[in-house]
């Protein structure tokens, strides 16, 4: 068990930068998720922590030790790979005990540890099988078992669930969370799935184009994204973005979205947005903050009337899409209140949850 620290890590592949200066402190026993689109450098970062890639510059610490020049075998880490990387010629027991056997642990202790890990993962009855005779979920468990048995300082997960089907993925996600509650070891987990990131992490690290966009607990990233990228990446369906202009609408500020549609800025935000009056900005609002109108409009919200373009019933809620100045906007309404496509509907936008982004810097204002 140990903390992990990255100091200004850079990784170049030939002349292409993959990771461009990452600073990250991971506390002991913390569950950190690196999330981002393909090619954002999250896997490369993980592989540098593992020692499978060499950092071009910067420092990596595991515990208090600088590990840049320490080979993977001496870093005392365990890794779960995307395609599990189980040794096909070994049984589950041999797979799980391989690391311990290499380290010349006494047979009795190996047996104890493997059995304990197998118990946690509920794979005791599979110990004699070869990986070929296991299902995807079982292989995933064995891969985790191989990591747990070692009792390492750090667990590394490289997109461990992306080879599983949707249902199993959800199940194994819960499983991983449970395992981490039982075996509290510092964990770095890489995924491109923001739902996985939100559900598993103590803190989420959102990466984009080799840089960290924002680090924070899942709810903070959701409610207070610092950049347009984070705002758009976290949450599903994604946040609506509309080009807009802040105008001084008498006593209060207003967001002018189109000729016809202007939404008032709640009073609490007036001071914050005053410097941006008459400037072009990007207005962001999540679909869940655009709902059907129920009676009186609550303070801080704004009612408006739109013609629905597409209506998608999801069961527990219905997605409604409408066009504002050529851009499609999504709202999430109660199925009983939803109208048909082509009809007009009264919607309410919760302006207290809005985000304004400076298009020049892509930072949230």
């Amino acid at each position, binding site marked *: 068990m140990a903390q992990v620290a990255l100091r200004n890590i850079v990784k170049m592949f030939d002349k292409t930068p993959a990771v461009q200066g990452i600073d990250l402190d991971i506390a002991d026993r913390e569950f950190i998720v690196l999330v981002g689109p393909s090619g954002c450098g999250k896997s490369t970062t993980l592989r540098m922590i*593992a*020692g*499978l890639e060499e950092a071009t510059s910067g420092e990596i610490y595991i515990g208090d030790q600088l590990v840049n020049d320490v*080979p*993977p*075998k*001496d*870093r005392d*880490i*365990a*890794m779960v*790979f995307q*395609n599990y*990387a*189980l*040794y*096909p*010629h070994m049984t589950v027991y041999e797979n799980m005990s*391989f*690391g311990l056997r*290499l*380290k010349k642990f006494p047979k009795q202790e190996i047996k104890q540890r493997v059995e304990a890990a197998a118990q946690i993962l509920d794979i005791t009855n599979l110990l004699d099988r*070869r*990986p*070929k*005779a*296991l*299902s995807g979920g079982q292989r995933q468990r064995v891969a985790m078992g*191989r990591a747990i048995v*070692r009792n390492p300082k750090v667990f590394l997960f490289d997109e461990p669930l992306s080879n599983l089907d949707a249902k199993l993925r959800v199940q194994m996600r819960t499983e991983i969370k449970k395992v981490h509650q039982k075996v509290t070891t510092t964990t770095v987990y890489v995924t491109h799935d923001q739902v996985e990131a939100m559900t598993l992490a103590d803190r989420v690290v959102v990466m984009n184009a080799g840089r960290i966009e924002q680090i924070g607990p899942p709810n903070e990233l959701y409610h207070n994204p610092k950049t347009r990228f984070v705002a758009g990446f976290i949450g599903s369906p994604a946040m609506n973005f509309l080009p807009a202009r802040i105008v001084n609408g008498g006593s209060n500020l207003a967001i002018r979205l189109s000729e016809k549609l202007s939404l008032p800025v709640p009073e609490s935000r007036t001071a914050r947005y005053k410097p941006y009056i008459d400037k072009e900005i990007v207005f962001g609002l999540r679909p869940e903050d655009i709902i059907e109108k129920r009676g009186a409009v609550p303070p801080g919200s704004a009612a408006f009337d739109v013609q629905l373009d597409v209506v998608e019933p999801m069961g527990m809620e219905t997605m409604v899409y409408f066009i504002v100045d050529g851009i499609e906007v999504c709202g999430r309404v109660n199925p009983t209140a939803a109208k048909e496509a082509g009809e007009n509907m009264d919607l309410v936008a919760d302006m207290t949850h809005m985000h304004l982004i400076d298009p020049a810097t892509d930072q949230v204002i």
Partner: protein
Amino acid sequence: MADAVVSDVKTPAVGRRVGRRSVSRHRSIVGFLFALPLIAVIAGLVVYPAGYAIHLATLNKSMQHFVGFDNFRFLFKRNTFWMVVEQSCLFAVTAVIFKAVVGFVVAHFVHNIPQKGQRKWRGMLLVPWVIPPAMSTLAWLWLFDPSYSAFNWVFAHLGIPQVAWLGNAYWARFCVILVNVWVGSPFFMIMYLAALKSVPEQLHEAAAIDGANWLQKIWYINLPMMRNIIQITALFSLIVTFANFDIVKILTNGGPVDQTHVFGTWAFTLAIWGNDIPLGASVSLFMAPILAVAAFFILRNVRKRGNEA
């Protein structure tokens, strides 16, 4: 790895069975007809010569009379025959072991060369295998020449006593094996390299994280993963090496005093030079049972482990 256990899907629904059986019988007849030309070619080129060799082996020297097993009885009584059996086994087994070891080591070196330069090295390392062995053996013959050879010239300059490379029975055997290893290891190298490339890189990474050093990675990951290829390559090479003719023929011609003869060269000597074709056929037939035993032992595990990786 992705294909789980799907092999034992049997027992179709009972009601359908009759119809399906007649369809499958029809299909197998058509399939057989399509395979017939190939079967005919194989029969003509393999079965007929093999049968003819067996027939020849039962005739007397002038090929006039049927003598049954007399040729074999005669061979069993000759010391030279047993010497050739011993030499052939020694030659084939030693050469194959060295070819496999050299091929394995070189394959690992080549595998670790960066992808860019690898093709060049692969091509160059294949050269000994691509040159017709009759020609390259001639070059080796000059290298081994007792008075003018490059080896002895170097030895003379280093003050090491000169070696009668092909004149001494043990050195001659060494030379024959050396040339065979030189010619044959590139084939092992290329087969093992292909096998090595099919070992997923992630297994090495997993092993590295599990704490394996390079030797342990080779021992616990590469060797077991390459096991089938290693066995099959060794078997094929064993067959070809056992039946080797050109290298021995050109380098030593069986000498000194028959002490480097293998089945192929001795059979040729008896049959063509000694004018006793039935006896030569008997000698060459002797390879079959020995190779069958080797094939049995080597292939025993291959099918069982066939689709493991």
